[in-house]
């Protein structure tokens, strides 16, 4: 295909720019309500309703917009208010009551309510409200992929275009595919699904394969439990992904792309469907895009819930309408993939990074990260950490900076124990590895993997053996059953881990576990089996004494494994407030008001409710 001349979005861009200008400087206040799935769970829709009601009652005209997630999930619901002539201010933990105050004091009055404010975006100083991007959790982040999330209306293509959207595509279409591949090689982008294979190389193999047609698949089957980067990105900025898909499709010579997305993400699917329709309306999809000879279409395929479908050959089987089981590679999908044709499968984040690289150039992109691990990576930071959320950091940053500077450390003054990267395919890294740089090679060397970006922090109240058992029970259930090492090996490993957590293990079990784990790792057919032992191997390596405590002392040091713990009440500390008595679902707690309470061990189901609710530290775990 020759470079396409004459495509320009000039007219649309002019319209988009002027509308964006009116939106921001037109005199009407602009209100942004973060209502991605996570925001909604925190009550964003009630906040939205409250704004509608307040604005109507007070007869204020304002532009009320639902936006995606800025990534500060622990402060949801988050609302941004831009009053004409003032900077955009983000407010945290907004409730319907706060909405009334914000409308009254700021929209109608002169008080920007700094007590509720989180930060402002650029602009002049405003009642001491700090700059958002200078706050500790954002200062060391570099937002490239997440740039628009939370700031533009994901339902409006023009807002994306006004923020330099589709400029990367325009540039791409002026280049020969070979030049695009070269640009990408210089940028050093590696697969953000976790394996880190150079993206340009995958494209080149596919492009050079003689067979036609070629296909592009976007892997949005974000199956790792504890990972939500792709969901957030699609909900907040779907056009970034679509632009990336168009760039990739043009370069590899495909005319059809599939987005394989989990059915558990209904809002993300809805946003994508709308965005695809908008592309069609603007002539950016379909036959002869903008009068050129480049034709392209994008279809959505909803996954039906199988973790193994994150593996590319299994994903292909699933699109073909078969059981999602992997097959041996080679041939790699880039040579023989969907319906036997050359197919490139790229992760959502990889694709959404492309517009930025093409627009700003390889030199710009490679200034971030390290020489072998260029650019940024998004992570879903969750678990026992103060500031949970979605972050984007330059590769090479240390785990410590992520957990402490960005994440704010461990809540309740507890001790850091481990950080888990890569979900069920990754490992748990202890405090001794906190200064490890986050790059593909260093994480593998330490026994974990980069993975797609789940990062779960664990504290002293997390049991290493229980975590290994948890991940194994997941991979065992998700094992497709095709190859023996994975099907039988994960089952046997899980049985051993269950014995240990129930206090029935012996030391020989640990030897067997080690052997089994190595065997499954080395002999399984696909990535699922090859990486499933990682949580076991890393916990055995870094937390062996904890395994031994379960086996030798029949004790769970973290106080998690039910069979090995008992709850009781310290009569000295108990004030007799009856909070535990009221919360106990099985009425196992007795005692008079203002007198010490006690727990009947025979009835207690060890649900831990009393432990959570007691404000005096009187409930103890033995």
């Amino acid at each position, binding site marked *: 295909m020759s470079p396409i001349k004459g495509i320009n979005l000039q007219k649309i861009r002019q319209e988009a720019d002027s509308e964006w200008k009116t939106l921001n400087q037109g005199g009407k206040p602009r209100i942004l309500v973060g209502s991605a799935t996570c925001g909604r769970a925190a009550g964003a829709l009630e906040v939205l309703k409250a704004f509608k009601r307040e604005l109507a009652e007070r007869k204020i005209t304002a532009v009320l917009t639902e936006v995606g997630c800025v990534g500060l999930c622990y402060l949801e619901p988050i609302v941004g208010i831009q009053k004409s002539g003032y900077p955009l201010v983000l407010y945290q933990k907004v409730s319907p009551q706060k909405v009334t105050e914000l409308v009254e004091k700021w929209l109608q009055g002169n008080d920007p309510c700094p007590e509720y404010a989180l930060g402002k975006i650029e602009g002049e100083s405003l009642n001491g409200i700090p700059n958002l991007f200078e706050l500790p959790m954002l200062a060391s982040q570099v937002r490239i992929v997440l740039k628009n999330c939370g700031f533009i209306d994901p339902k409006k293509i023009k807002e994306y275009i006004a923020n330099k959207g589709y400029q990367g595509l325009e540039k791409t279409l002026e280049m020969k595919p070979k030049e695009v591949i070269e640009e990408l090689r210089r940028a050093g982008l590696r697969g953000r699904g976790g394996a880190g294979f150079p993206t340009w190389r995958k494209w080149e193999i596919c492009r050079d394969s003689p067979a036609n047609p070629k296909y592009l698949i976007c892997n949005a089957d974000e199956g790792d439990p*504890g990972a939500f980067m792709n969901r957030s990105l699609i909900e907040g900025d779907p056009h970034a992904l679509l632009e990336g898909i168009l760039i990739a499709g043009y370069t590899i010579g495909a005319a059809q792309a599939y987005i394989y997305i989990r059915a558990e993400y209904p809002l993300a699917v809805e946003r994508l469907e709308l965005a695809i329709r908008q592309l069609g309306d603007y002539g950016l999809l379909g036959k002869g895009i903008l009068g050129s000879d480049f034709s392209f279409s994008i279809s959505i395929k909803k996954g039906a819930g199988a973790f193994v479908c994150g593996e590319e050959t299994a994903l292909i089987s699933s699109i073909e*309408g078969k059981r999602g089981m992997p097959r041996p590679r080679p041939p790699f999908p880039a040579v023989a993939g969907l319906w036997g044709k050359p197919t490139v499968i790229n992760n959502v984040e990889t694709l959404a990074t492309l517009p930025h690289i093409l627009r700003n150039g390889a030199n710009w992109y490679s200034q971030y990260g390290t020489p072998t691990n260029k650019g940024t990576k998004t992570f*879903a930071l969750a678990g026992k950490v103060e500031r949970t959320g979605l972050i984007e950091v330059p590769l090479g940053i240390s785990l410590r900076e992520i957990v402490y500077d960005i994440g704010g450390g461990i809540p309740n003054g507890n001790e850091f124990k481990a950080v888990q990267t890569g979900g069920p395919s990754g490992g748990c890294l202890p405090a001794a590895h906190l200064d490890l740089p986050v790059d593909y090679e260093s994480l593998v060397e330490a026994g974990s993997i980069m993975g797609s970006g789940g990062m779960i922090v664990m504290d002293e109240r997390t049991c290493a053996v229980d975590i290994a058992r948890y991940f194994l029970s997941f991979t065992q259930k998700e094992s497709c059953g095709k190859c023996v090492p994975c099907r039988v090996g994960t089952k046997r490993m899980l049985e051993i881990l269950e014995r240990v957590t129930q206090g029935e293990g012996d030391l020989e079990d640990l030897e067997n576990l080690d052997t089994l784990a190595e065997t499954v790792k080395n002999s399984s057919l696909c990535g699922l089996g090859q990486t499933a032992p990682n949580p076991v191997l890393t916990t055995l390596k870094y937390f062996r004494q904890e395994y031994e405590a379960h086996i030798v002392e029949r004790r769970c040091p973290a106080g998690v494994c039910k069979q090995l713990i008992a709850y009781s009440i310290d009569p000295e500390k108990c004030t007799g407030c009856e909070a535990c008595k009221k919360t106990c679902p099985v009425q196992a707690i007795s005692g008079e008001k203002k007198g010490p309470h006690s727990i009947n061990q025979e009835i207690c189901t060890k649900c831990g409710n009393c432990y959570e609710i007691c404000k005096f530290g009187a409930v103890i775990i033995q």
Partner: protein
Amino acid sequence: MQRKVEEVLLNHKKERSELILVLQEVQGRFGYISQEAVGQVADHLKLSQSEVFGVATFFSQFRFTKPGRHTVKVCSGTACHVRGGARVLDFVQDELKLKPGGTTQDGRFSLERIACFGCCALAPVVVIDDDVYGKITPSKLKNILGKYG
């Protein structure tokens, strides 16, 4: 029901790649995939019933019994597990006398265990029908369940 399944099938080409989509639509319409529906889908796509059933049972989304009026979905993602999700699941199982995949005898609740909703910052998470509840504890959930008749 037979005729309604046919209505779904009419909108789809007779190609194998349509299979999962067809099954999703059948389930979306009826809440589950009945044995008869498997037969009709197989006829339409010119596949054997065992092939259709094989694909349907492979994926965790599909169910083969009628669901309850409300579906309680407990997230068992990593963040939820670390923050007490397992205790929440134990509680629901005891409270409703149900195992994941089952339905209460009065047809009021079905229970499902979900790999991850991706709302990890709000862990532990429970979704009832389309309502998302974050930072759930067994005692909070007890009150919430009461709202669903």
